[in-house]
């Protein structure tokens, strides 16, 4: 198990990069300054080669677009759909490869100015996730047993970023304080499809003690269905709120709780979900019932502190349960507190 300190340190680093990205994107965007030409001949030659390649690919792209228009016009062709998908694929591929070597594109990507409208940036973000972040995410998810406990292991397609006020879960598994997560977070799912698709977003706590059955139960803390998401609109908003947000409240006497945010795609479009019982929630059967396919996951961990008592009193308006082992009868002390005699006269 990873030490708590290490995770805190990592999370603060991730936070700082995010902050950097944001400041670069909003405040006084620095403009790209290309290095001077006619200084380093190798650099000039490199630019020439890249420009040549770009020009060639753009000329091919023009041809592809011409063909696309032609195919779109021919309505009665039986192979139209197949031709269209192939041509569109080729067009996107050409656009990406034409711009990938551009120094400015690379510079903008590295400095956090990522424009998801551009195919090349979408491609770069996706590659970054697949090559770099996915393995880390899966490592955390499997190490901390989120996957067999809540649902079967799956292949996440994109990153889920959960942002609370001043805290962001860029890296799965970090520790947060219950006081920091009272208000609902901003969840964004960095997807790569241009068209809008519908998603179900939920937050599950699989570590709530179930006293009756002497085991653990899952509790659904937040459930939104029919959330429209696309690559330019990655932030979760709108949709139907089935269960409003309940702040995470790890019970006193239990170990850490894994608060898991799941992003599930609705392949068959809109779904109608009647009211759901949040206690003893079964994620697996819910996914099966509504034919959902998991696409993204992220989670953070919390342990009890005094804020949980306040959440119970002010928000949940319930008596706070305290868990622990039952008191053990002492072998040596009597009920009155005196030490029992070692030898008895029989």
């Amino acid at each position, binding site marked *: 198990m990873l030490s708590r300190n290490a995770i805190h340190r990592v999370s603060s680093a991730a936070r700082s990069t995010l902050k950097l990205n944001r400041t670069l994107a909003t405040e006084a965007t620095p403009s790209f*300054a290309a*290095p001077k030409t006619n200084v380093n*001949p190798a*650099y000039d030659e*490199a630019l020439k080669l*890249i420009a040549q390649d770009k020009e060639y690919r753009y000329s091919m792209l023009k041809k592809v677009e011409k063909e696309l228009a032609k195919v779109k016009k021919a309505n009665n062709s039986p192979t139209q759909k197949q031709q269209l998908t192939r041509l569109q694929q080729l067009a996107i591929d050409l656009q990406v490869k034409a711009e990938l070597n551009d120094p400015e594109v*690379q510079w903008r990507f590295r400095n956090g100015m990522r424009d998801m409208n551009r195919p090349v940036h979408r491609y770069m973000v996706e590659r970054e996730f697949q090559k770099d972040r996915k393995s880390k995410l899966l490592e955390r998810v499997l190490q901390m047993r989120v996957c067999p406990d809540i649902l079967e292991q799956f292949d996440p397609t994109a990153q889920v970023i959960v942002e609370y006020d001043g805290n962001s879960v860029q890296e799965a598994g970090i520790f947060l304080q219950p006081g920091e997560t009272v208000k609902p977070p901003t969840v964004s799912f960095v997807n790569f499809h241009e068209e809008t698709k519908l998603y179900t977003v939920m937050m599950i706590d699989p570590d709530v003690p179930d006293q009756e059955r002497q085991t653990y139960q899952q509790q659904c803390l937040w459930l939104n269905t029919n959330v429209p998401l696309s690559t330019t609109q990655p932030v979760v908003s709108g949709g139907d709120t089935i269960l409003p947000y309940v702040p995470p409240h790890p019970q006193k006497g239990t170990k850490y709780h894994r608060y898991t945010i799941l992003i599930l795609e609705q392949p068959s479009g809109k779904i109608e979900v009647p009211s759901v019982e949040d206690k003893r929630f079964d994620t697996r059967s819910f996914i099966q019932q509504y034919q959902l396919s998991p696409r993204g996951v992220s989670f953070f961990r919390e342990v009890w502190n005094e804020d949980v008592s306040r959440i119970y009193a002010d928000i949940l308006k319930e008596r706070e349960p305290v868990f622990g082992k039952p008191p053990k009868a002492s072998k040596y002390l009597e009920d009155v507190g005196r030490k029992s005699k070692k030898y008895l006269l029989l």
Partner: protein
Amino acid sequence: MSLFARTGRLSLSRQQLLRAAAPAPVTGGSGDQRLEIIRRVLFEQPTRETPNLEGEALQQHETIERAWKLHQNQERERRNRELEKKFRKMSAAMNELEKTSDRLFKAAIVKSRHITFPREMKIPTETPSPQGWNHDYTPPVEVVPAKNS
């Protein structure tokens, strides 16, 4: 014994020791002197500092690297395409031959396990030049770099 672990910079005291040591007697009788030299050459060389690039220099460097990779990619793809084309043509020719003449086709698919390139095959070299020595050679004019302010 840290025979293989010693790398990196010499410690200061070690450097002073080396400087102070008398030159080795050139007897050559024992192998110890030579082993000591080998050890010093192999494991006590200071590590070379890697250049730390920043700003414009870094951008230039990355652009050059990307272009070089692009060039290599283009070359590789061109080579593969040519080979693939030739291979398909060869395959088509064999199919044609199969239809045309059974005798020739059978002769064409016979293979020897002991086939090699001829020993006389010479791998091309730059020197000696087929034209002999060029006495009128003048070096190419250097590109004078603009002064950086």
